[in-house]
């Protein structure tokens, strides 16, 4: 068995499939492609790829539905590809279990970086237990001890701040939608109180980031949510 990661690309645009196949193969991935949702689902079941790149607009079914059906039986990382006009669909797909998204047109370096993060994330969650210590730049988070240090100095966090940070850090590398963060960290009734989230993110950044106005640890995902960045 080859050790090259296997990537399945589901997209109905022949140009994109050709480009991705060429580029990803050159980057030492094994690539299979599907241009329809059903075909993609069948390939995913038959080949058990290590990662799936999924376009949201498919001719036979909605990409969101493909995502939901994949999640019924597999935790394989899914990266959504979509055009900017389908923001809502993107959020729905992320809430349905997709790990990340890219907006078309995208830069290939960016896609490769996302693929690396997603593969590492899935390797971690498969490898027995999740790490309890998370490193992000000069910040170290110990989820078990509820302790956060920056340059070795302990940072005092309130209970909500820690809960928020812990949720972000436990899903490091993944895009988390505002709604999913709100429903995990706050009460389900607060799912629309984006203002809470904005305020707490601001407070966390002040405490953790070198420059809160140019955050490197808790990154914005414009219009979608946030992503916690960890060291490679």
């Amino acid at each position, binding site marked *: 068995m080859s050790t090259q990661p296997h990537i399945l690309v589901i997209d109905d645009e022949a140009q994109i499939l050709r480009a991705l196949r060429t580029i990803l193969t050159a980057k030492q991935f094994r690539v299979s492609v599907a241009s329809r949702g059903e075909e993609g689902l069948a390939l995913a079941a038959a080949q058990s790829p290590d990662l799936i790149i999924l376009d949201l607009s498919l001719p036979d079914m909605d990409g969101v539905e493909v995502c939901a059906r994949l999640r019924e039986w597999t935790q394989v990382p899914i990266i959504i590809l979509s055009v900017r006009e389908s923001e809502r669909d993107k959020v729905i797909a992320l809430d349905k279990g997709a790990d990340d998204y890219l907006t078309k047109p995208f830069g290939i370096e960016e896609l490769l970086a996302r693929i690396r993060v997603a593969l590492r994330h899935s390797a971690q969650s498969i490898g027995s237990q999740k790490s309890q210590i998370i490193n992000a730049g000069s910040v170290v988070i110990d989820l078990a001890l509820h302790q956060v240090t920056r340059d070795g100095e302990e940072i005092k966090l309130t209970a909500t701040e820690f809960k928020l940070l812990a949720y972000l850090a436990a899903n490091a590398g993944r895009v988390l939608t505002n709604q999913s963060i709100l429903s995990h960290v706050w009460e389900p009734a607060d799912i629309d109180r984006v*203002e809470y989230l*904005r305020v707490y993110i601001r407070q966390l950044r002040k405490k953790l980031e070198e420059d809160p106005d140019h955050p490197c640890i808790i990154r*914005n995902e*414009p219009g979608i949510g946030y992503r916690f960045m960890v060291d490679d």
Partner: protein
Amino acid sequence: MRLEFHLEVIIIHMMRVNPFRKIRTFPGIEYLLAILLTGLFTLIFLPFRSNGGQDHTILSQLYLLPVVLSSLFWGLGPGALVAVLSFLALNYFFVPPYYTLLVHQTQDILVLIVFLGVSITIGQLVGRVSKSLAESHAREHEAIHLYELTMHLAGLQDEQDIVSALAEQTLIALRARRVDVLVEAQGDGPARHIRMEDRSQPSRFQNETPTYLCPLESSHGLLGEIQVWRERTPLVPAEARMMHTFASQGVTALERLRLSQAASRSRLLEESDRFKSSLLSSVSHELRTPLATIKAAVTSLRSETVAWDSVARDDLMAAIEEETDHLNQLVGNLLNMSRIEAGALKPERSWNSLADIVASTLERMRQQTQKHQIEVNVSADLPLVPVDYFQIEQVFINLISNSTKYSPERTKIIIHAERLNGNMLQVTVSNQGPHVDAENLERIFDKFYRVTAADKVTGAGLGLSICKGIIEAHGGRIWAENLALGFAFHFTLPLSVEGFPLEAGREVVDE
């Protein structure tokens, strides 16, 4: 085809009561009454009969009274009947020999014949006068109702209103129990069905077919019909005539409205047509320019005759990347423009930090802004604003891209935001570019408008008008200003809108 009817039932309680209504409900009752009246008068006259039998000349004059009365009340026919009956009664009861129709004296024959002639003539005269009086009443009635209808129809700009007015006026004019007006669907307009009922009249017409029908006929065909339920029968000619006049008035009103609607529709189409053709001419040029650059760069790179050094390669690659970003922006602007044109640009608001939006905008525009110094003065401590993230990002992209196009390289572009007194946030994007003539400061936000001196600058002339559309959809204002050493765009955003109260945007106190 599915006809969609809008049924609207309006109940009218009419207070007017017609005293003759019940009497008129049986045809022929007038003749019966005329006979009774003659009998009554005969009974009254009988006690005054003298034995000499010479008083029938006076009585013959008295008998004119029932003739006149019945002609007056019940018309020509009953009047003539009473004349003949009176003649017989006079002969039978009052001309000797009594209780026979025989007459002995020639003088009496003369009296009787004269009586018959006079009574019939008077009866006919009175009957005719009363008939023409009734007719002129009916005509006056008709004229009044027609006037009422025209007054009600005048100036109505809604089909539903016209149909309702027609139904209501028909109901009142014909004193009908119920009137339905049906108008068939035309174009994309729905079919209409209006029902007016007079509940003060007893209803014997539940779910029955209408008593009268009158088509609403235009020169282009049938538009619909008026259905009338009325218990009093039949329609007199004047009423039938009135119903048809009403129908034709209704048709005229409907056609007038439809014509004016068609006219305004075609005006709209014309405008959007003009918009589309200027968009096409402007956009096709704008799309080709970056495409030409990309094509040129790619073909150069693939060319085997030139060995590119790494700096030249990088330059060409950067050009390709820049131009694809540019194309992407253009497509985004086109989509937004079509949404603004279609009135479909509704901000999806949520609480956002302006600092985040500016940061992500600048990240997206890294390539485009390389040649300028960008200075950001937007504090993350500003209150949150209830805005559509992507629309406001688009505003920043367009304003910054406009600034990079018009201001010289290596100059400063400053993005500044501050809270105004009260409920507003003001953002300023300023650059060190040239001034715009004062009279054009507002026009630069018009579609396709470009300051003529800057013809070399690319852009479809859509960017600023999109900014205007977005900011106004957010309840803010956008304007431009010449600075002492440059040029500035300002826009305001409300800190609270309906559904997003100001308090929610304030700091949330931690536990």
